[in-house]
């Protein structure tokens, strides 16, 4: 059983109200299930389970109930919602859905949560430091926080992250503990990883081959933040651990030895991964860039490629509202909109209600392909930003 402080015990008895009591009950139960000795303070929280599409009326009711007397104790940000909170009509979202989605956001706002809905909180004001304990949901952000920053978080579900936010603590098990952060398998990358789809395919290959063990990855060229962001999303989507070590990138990698158990990733593995992610579809109805959400640098690149062009396919740029504000001021938004493209702020292709709207999608994201196929039954094409924008302009995959 977990050790609780006197104060935590009092919260469990209801001293700080019903939302705090319920939250403490969740944390204690999870701590006991996973053998945690105690609770640790968290520096910030990222809450998933924001889209009304996934929450339904049950989730909305739960959140509204919790918001009656629930207040977060630490910096807390939100995952993407089911729609752009301002531009939802242009994205084809129904009035009824928008009304329910706004009620969900209202409940979060009432609890003191920053309602900037993004899967890249680290680009939008929720940037942890090395060694901090966090309670984050959103698997790509969890992987980024653990592996690129060296903060410590398990892969939380929506309610457990919210409970951690209301208490300001999380049970100390899993990736909060040194012993579980050690690399277990050496992954030698023999393939050349150059493009965004290469990074996505590498995530897929490691996800499938490393069997959920923490990998120590060698053989990579220096990578950009955007490439790492995409890799984090892919590796965890396809079954990998939400922590990897890349010497020279992961801050704690130098504390560890290269594990003896070794797997290799060859050019053939990357080619196989691309084949598995891609469907042989030529007509492209929908192009969505920004899974995870685009950085300002990625938006700049999209604008440069779209300048003076017109899109034929439905074309969305998914990003946080912060990034859009920056893009507005730099003139990128005007270029994208003049080309017929749309902003999809606060949302993305994984959580918007897209089922039945498009038969095919092109994206740079291996993770995006997984969700478009699975829950939204679209045929998928993964390519570079140049290939995707070309598909948006011509309506065809070249």
């Amino acid at each position, binding site marked *: 059983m977990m050790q609780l402080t006197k104060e935590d015990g009092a919260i469990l008895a209801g001293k700080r109200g019903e939302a705090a009591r*319920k939250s403490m*009950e*969740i944390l204690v*139960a*999870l701590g*006991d*299930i996973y053998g945690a000795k105690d609770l640790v303070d968290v520096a910030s929280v990222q809450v*998933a*389970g924001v889209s009304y599409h*996934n*929450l*339904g*009326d*049950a*989730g909305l*009711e*739960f959140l509204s109930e919790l918001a009656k007397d629930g207040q977060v104790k630490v910096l807390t940000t939100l995952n993407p919602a089911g729609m752009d909170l301002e531009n939802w009509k242009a994205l084809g979202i129904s009035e009824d859905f928008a009304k329910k989605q706004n009620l969900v956001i209202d409940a979060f706002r009432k609890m003191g949560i920053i309602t900037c809905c993004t899967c890249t909180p680290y680009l939008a004001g929720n940037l942890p430091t090395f060694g901090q304990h966090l309670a984050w*949901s959103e698997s790509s952000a969890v992987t980024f926080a653990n592996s690129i920053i060296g903060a410590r978080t398990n892969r939380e*579900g*929506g*309610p*457990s992250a919210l409970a951690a936010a209301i208490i300001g603590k999380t049970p100390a098990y899993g990736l909060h503990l040194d012993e579980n952060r050690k690399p277990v398998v050496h992954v030698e990358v023999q393939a050349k990883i150059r493009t965004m789809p290469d990074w996505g395919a590498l995530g897929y290959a490691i996800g499938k081959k490393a069997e959920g063990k923490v990998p120590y990855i060698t053989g990579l060229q220096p990578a950009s933040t955007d490439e790492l962001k995409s890799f984090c999303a892919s590796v965890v989507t396809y079954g990998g651990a939400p922590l990897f070590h890349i010497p020279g990138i992961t801050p704690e990698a130098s504390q560890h030895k290269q594990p003896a158990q070794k797997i290799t990733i060859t050019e053939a593995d990357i080619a196989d991964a691309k084949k598995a992610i891609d469907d042989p579809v030529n007509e492209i109805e929908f192009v969505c860039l920004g899974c995870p959400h685009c950085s300002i640098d990625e938006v700049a690149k999209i604008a440069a490629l779209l300048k003076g062009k017109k899109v034929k396919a439905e074309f969305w740029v998914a990003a946080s509202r912060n990034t859009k504000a920056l893009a507005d001021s730099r003139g990128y938004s005007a270029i994208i909109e003049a080309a017929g493209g749309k902003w999809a702020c606060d949302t993305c292709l994984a959580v918007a209600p897209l089922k039945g709207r498009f038969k095919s999608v092109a994206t740079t994201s291996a993770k995006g392909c997984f969700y478009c196929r699975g829950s939204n039954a679209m045929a998928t094409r993964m390519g570079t930003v140049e290939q995707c924008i070309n598909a948006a302009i011509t309506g065809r995959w070249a």
Partner: protein
Amino acid sequence: MELSGRTIKRGSAQGEVLATAQPISFYGGVDPDTGIVVEKGHELEGKSIAGKVLVFPSGKGSTVGSYALYRLAKNGKAPAAIINKETETIVAVGAIISDIPAIDKIDISQLKTGDKVSVDATAGKVRSL
């Protein structure tokens, strides 16, 4: 017969056992308005979990499953109690937010559909009636 396990959510209930050896996904696998299992090919497909002492090894699927249990409870279609071999996060959180008494670390092969049992989840006990 008396079985001992670990408290996941305190509380007590009495009722008829509905047992399966297969994991359950509450999001997508159970109709939230009727409590009927709708997962294709599941042992319990077509059966209602409403008011039953639901015995299954563990949960599976999306973490939204916690909210699905909550919705079942709000609709009066939740199980009276949950008994697992090993409770994982989805079911644990779902039971807590929905006030469904729950126990795990139970030898669930001892419990058969139709058995009448009382569940004292606070003490972690299941007894035949």
